[in-house]
């Protein structure tokens, strides 16, 4: 018992103070103690660690995930910050962002893909200062990355690395047949595939789904441009079935022919998802496929027998060139964050060259450069397969090419309109003209809706 209360009780017992007096003084003592404790708690809270919520991308490159987590923990310890890390994969990150933003409870900062700054623009903080500082110290951003990070003159994301796709070839089979890597799809990839495949052994020359998937949609978007067409014109208006109709028809026809006419793709390819070609390639059932560097990482990290039998080359093209879309992962800070300075400090810490190099080295080609200064990192000369990855990143174009990168262009990709178009021809019985017309109507609708926004 508090000694003051004890003393008062003794006085009451001895009849020195009245009961009312006892109650009054006891109330003052206990109230004062409670107020003091409350003040002490407040002071203790003021000295407690700052808390930061960071959402990270859980990539297939698990070693890279571990390195990022380690770096963040080291920074948190150094700065006496309590960091709550949360991970999201390819499949659930957008849902998490949407839910958190709509609930008004986003994290302080997050690792986003190339669409993130544009999609969540309304909820993101201007990070021009830190983005410019980081870019300035690394020789500047590559053009495709700058276009994605900088919106209306403000940076909404600090670029980190690029994931790109390359053309995977079974080097052993190619050499056994005395062939060279193909540079264009038609006729080189077709001929290459025909000469190397053996359907009787379930070995197929080319594995590229046209089903609803990111892989399929990326391929369709690129091949339209390879043939001189595209979904959008240079002003960002729909051109799929209008000004680029002829070129797009040729590209669509070729894509469909790889399955229906040339017979160079496995029979189940229209049922594939984003990992099916990885599985098929690693199972030894494909001679060539388009995929991200994560496939190479998976083979190298697992010491897969095909790792050293694989050649990564530039993505083949068409009559108008070879177009590749690469992602640009980046750090974004949310407007609701109460600690933007801490977020920026963490970004600077993570983008420090020493730490980033550690990340790159475990990523086996997946963490491609987005800054000019990082292109010359000796790491990219350490494996012949890395050259195609860097070169593909250097020539990357954004969605919406040759026009600007727009929400409508992102939505067309998000709704898988291009793979639906191909699928309607391959399995839906539509003519390429009808499928193009149908897809163009959907693109027009998206454009109209987004224009109203």
């Amino acid at each position, binding site marked *: 018992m508090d000694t003051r209360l004890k003393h008062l009780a003794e006085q009451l017992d001895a009849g020195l103070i009245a009961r009312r007096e006892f109650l009054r003084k006891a109330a003052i003592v206990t109230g004062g103690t409670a107020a003091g404790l409350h003040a002490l708690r407040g002071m203790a809270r003021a000295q407690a660690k700052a808390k930061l919520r960071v959402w990270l991308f859980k990539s297939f490159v698990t070693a890279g995930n571990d390195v990022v987590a380690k770096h963040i923990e080291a920074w948190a310890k150094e700065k006496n910050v309590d960091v709550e890390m949360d991970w999201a994969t390819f499949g659930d990150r*957008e*849902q998490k*962002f*949407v839910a958190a*933003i*709509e609930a008004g409870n986003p994290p302080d900062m997050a690792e986003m893909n190339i669409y993130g700054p544009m*999609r*969540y*623009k*309304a*909820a993101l903080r201007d990070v021009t200062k830190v983005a410019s500082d980081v870019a300035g110290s690394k020789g500047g951003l590559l053009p495709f990355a700058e276009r994605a990070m900088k919106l209306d003159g403000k940076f909404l994301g600090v670029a980190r690395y690029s994931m790109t796709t390359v053309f995977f070839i079974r080097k052993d089979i190619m050499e056994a047949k005395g062939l060279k890597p193909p540079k264009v799809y038609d006729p080189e990839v077709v001929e290459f595939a025909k000469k190397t495949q053996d359907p009787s052994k*379930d070995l197929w020359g080319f594995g590229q789904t046209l*089903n*609803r*998937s990111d892989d399929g949609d990326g391929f369709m978007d690129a091949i339209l441009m390879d043939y001189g067409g595209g979904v959008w014109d240079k002003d960002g208006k729909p051109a799929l079935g209008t000004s680029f109709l002829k070129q797009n028809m040729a590209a669509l026809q070729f894509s469909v022919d790889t399955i229906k006419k040339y017979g160079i793709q*496995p*029979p*189940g*390819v*229209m*049922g*594939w*998802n984003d990992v*099916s070609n990885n*599985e*098929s390639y690693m*199972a030894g*059932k494909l001679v060539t496929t388009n995929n991200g560097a994560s496939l190479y990482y998976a083979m190298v990290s697992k010491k897969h027998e095909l790792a050293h039998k694989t050649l990564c080359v530039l993505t083949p093209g068409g009559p108008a060139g070879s177009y590749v879309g690469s992602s640009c992962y980046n750090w974004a800070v949310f407007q609701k964050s109460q600690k933007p300075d801490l977020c920026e400090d963490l970004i600077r810490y993570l983008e420090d060259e020493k730490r980033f190099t550690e990340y790159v080295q475990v990523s086996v080609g997946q963490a491609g450069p987005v800054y000019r200064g990082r292109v010359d990192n000796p790491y990219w000369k350490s494996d012949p397969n890395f050259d195609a990855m860097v070169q593909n990143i250097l020539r990357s174009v954004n969605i919406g090419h040759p026009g600007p990168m727009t929400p409508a262009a992102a*939505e067309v990709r*998000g*709704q*898988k309109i291009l*793979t*639906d178009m*191909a*699928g*309607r*021809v*391959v*399995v*839906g019985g539509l003519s390429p003209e009808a499928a193009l017309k*149908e897809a163009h*109507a*959907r693109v027009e*609708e*998206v454009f109209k*809706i987004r224009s*109203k*926004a």
Partner: protein
Amino acid sequence: MATVQPSSPPLPSGERVGVRGGFHPEVRPKPRPGLEPALRRVFGPDYRMGFLFVAPIVVLVLALVAYPFGYAVYLSMTRKYVGMPPVWVGFENYVRLTYDGFFQRAVVNSFTFTFASVAIKTVLGMGMALVLTSKIRFRSFWTGVLLIPWVAPTVVSALNFLWIFDYSLGVLNYLLVHVFGVLAHGVGWLSEPSTAMASVIGVNVWRGFPFFGISFLAGMKAIPGELYEAAAVDGATVLQRFRYVTLPGIRNIVMIVLLLSTIWTFNDFAIVYILTKGGPGGATMVLPVLTYEIAFGAQRLGEAIAVALYMLPALAFVIIVLSNYMRRGRAR
């Protein structure tokens, strides 16, 4: 209400009286045609206490059902992008969907998926229940085994079937081509529109028929054995006993199971999304997947909710018809 001395003669309403208490010491109040007598008449004399008891659940229902539903209806009539305030557009989203060919295909696919799945599940579930009511050995064991598909998480089942259906690496083609030699070449189960739809229906049936079977089984066990004995004495065949004793005995259960399964199947997302994502070429696109795609792929929340709500009247109609049917059955 004012009280009147028992000895007082009846007075016209509003006449001055010298009583104490009531609303006015000197005025006899008019019998109020107002709220209270009406409430007492409708809800009983303890209606205040009743309201008190009912209030928590009413608040809960309003907060957890009515408000979200009302807000969803409101959002479906807006142009709403992630992180931006909604803009009222009235019925624009619904009108646009009505004329959207891709949406129309999704509606047709949803009905195909739902009705085919529910029909097959009903037949299989009935078969399962009939087998389990017959005298077989290890009946409890078989009941447990048949429940496994229902108990297994949908995502796990769907991922397993994704592998099973794979053209090159899947076990189904391996069995059909290499083990049993039934086919010369494998089938692209998920790569052709017809087989893809059949595959997603098959997985839904595999997962859902035990629920039908167990529910029907419970109903069959409640039918008195004397009815079967009487039917047998009257010379009824097995089929006649099933037609005239079993089916009427489990009619209400069948209706409830059909009702629930129709709603669940219509809203099934995981199986279609994991197996085909609506492909190939939109051939298996159903409304839940389309809703998801518009919400998270296109990030147009207002239109996504409009997709989700579009078929609500149709589902409500099914529910009302089935409920009425059950009520009529009970009344008879």
